[in-house]
């Protein structure tokens, strides 16, 4: 992996921006992986082209055979009375057959172009978006819920992509819900243990119950650790709080007096001006 650092000559206030530049070997490996993923579709299309070509070429070669010309001429000539048979010109039959042969070659060429065009469109509109989708879905499966499946694709693929994104959104919501509840329970446990410690007579709290409390705490901590192993979309968990990893788009908000009560507040007329 290469990291290119762009440093401007501006003294102590230099800003270094690191940009990842893959080397030749990494590029080749990436191309190989892409080829490996598309191998099946490439093989199917190659077989289709080969089949079309084989059928067409077999027909063209068959028409080109001399004995076929002779046989057709004989069959046509046999339809005439004996005295007119000598007048029949076989060259016209050969010319017609040659014309058919040329038409066949033209048709073959057009079919080849069509199949190539279909293959190109198929790879660009179906295989490539599916590739991107599978890479993103794999990252999501690995716990990167911050990943978004691209949905710029044909309708059918786009629908699948949106459904995968919905699944990730639902999973994120459930995990955050669990984490928030666990956090709240931890706060309650802290309060309980604080109160019990402050009791002058510690015999009020048997040691088994204290041990049980500790077990509950450890279980909750493990549950939180499991949730924290995920990467969330635009959210991070820090210091017992769920915060946005990127500031939501509200930078133009003006300062307002604090009058928050029970989750609700009065609209301040000047906020939106």
């Amino acid at each position: 992996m290469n990291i290119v650092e762009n440093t401007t000559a501006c003294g102590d206030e230099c800003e270094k921006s690191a940009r990842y530049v893959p080397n030749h070997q990494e590029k080749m490996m990436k191309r190989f992986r892409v080829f490996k993923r598309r191998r099946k579709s490439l093989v199917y299309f190659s077989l289709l082209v080969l089949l079309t070509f084989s059928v067409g070429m077999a027909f063209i070669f068959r028409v080109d055979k001399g004995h076929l010309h002779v046989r057709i001429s004989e069959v046509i000539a046999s339809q005439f009375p004996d005295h007119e048979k000598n007048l029949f010109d076989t060259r016209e039959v050969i010319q017609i057959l040659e014309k058919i042969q040329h038409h066949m070659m033209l048709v073959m060429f057009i079919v080849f172009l069509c199949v190539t065009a279909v293959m190109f469109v198929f790879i660009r509109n179906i295989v490539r978006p599916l590739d991107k989708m599978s890479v993103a879905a794999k990252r999501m499966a690995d716990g990167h819920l911050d990943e978004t499946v691209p949905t710029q694709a044909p309708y059918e693929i786009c629908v699948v992509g949106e459904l995968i994104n919905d699944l990730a959104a639902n999973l994120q919501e459930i995990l955050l819900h669990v984490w928030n509840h666990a956090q709240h329970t931890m706060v309650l446990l802290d309060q309980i243990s604080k109160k019990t410690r402050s009791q002058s007579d510690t015999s009020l709290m048997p040691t088994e119950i204290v041990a049980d409390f500790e077990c509950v705490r450890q279980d909750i901590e493990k549950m939180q650790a499991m949730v924290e192993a995920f990467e969330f979309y635009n959210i991070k968990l820090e210091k017992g709080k769920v915060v946005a990893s990127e500031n939501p788009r509200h930078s133009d908000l003006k300062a307002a007096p604090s009058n928050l009560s029970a989750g609700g507040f009065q609209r301040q007329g000047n906020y939106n001006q």
Partner: protein
Amino acid sequence: MGKRILIVDDSSIMRNMIKKILEAGGHTIAGEAKNGKEGVDLYKSLQPDMVTMDVTMREMDGFASAREIIKYDDDAQIIFLSNLDKEKYGEDAKRIGAKGYVGKRESREILTLIENS
């Protein structure tokens, strides 16, 4: 009296949960949107009495969406319903002009807020 409410949330599970809470409180669901942009469009077409808005959403987040809605209708009644820390983001919601901010853990509080509004 029941209100017509638009739910804006990217999670279908959460939308269903909020829907059940609101319906149990005697309100009707005017519509559901899965991102902020869709929320703005549905608000304009459905003209609901109230909106419940998530904050973190793909395409357009809840704050941007709420600002668009309030820009369109200064009397829009928006309540934020999010997993994000209430202490940290409640103030931001207030600055935008929302009616309130409820943590998803205490989703049922939304009924009290609607009744008080």
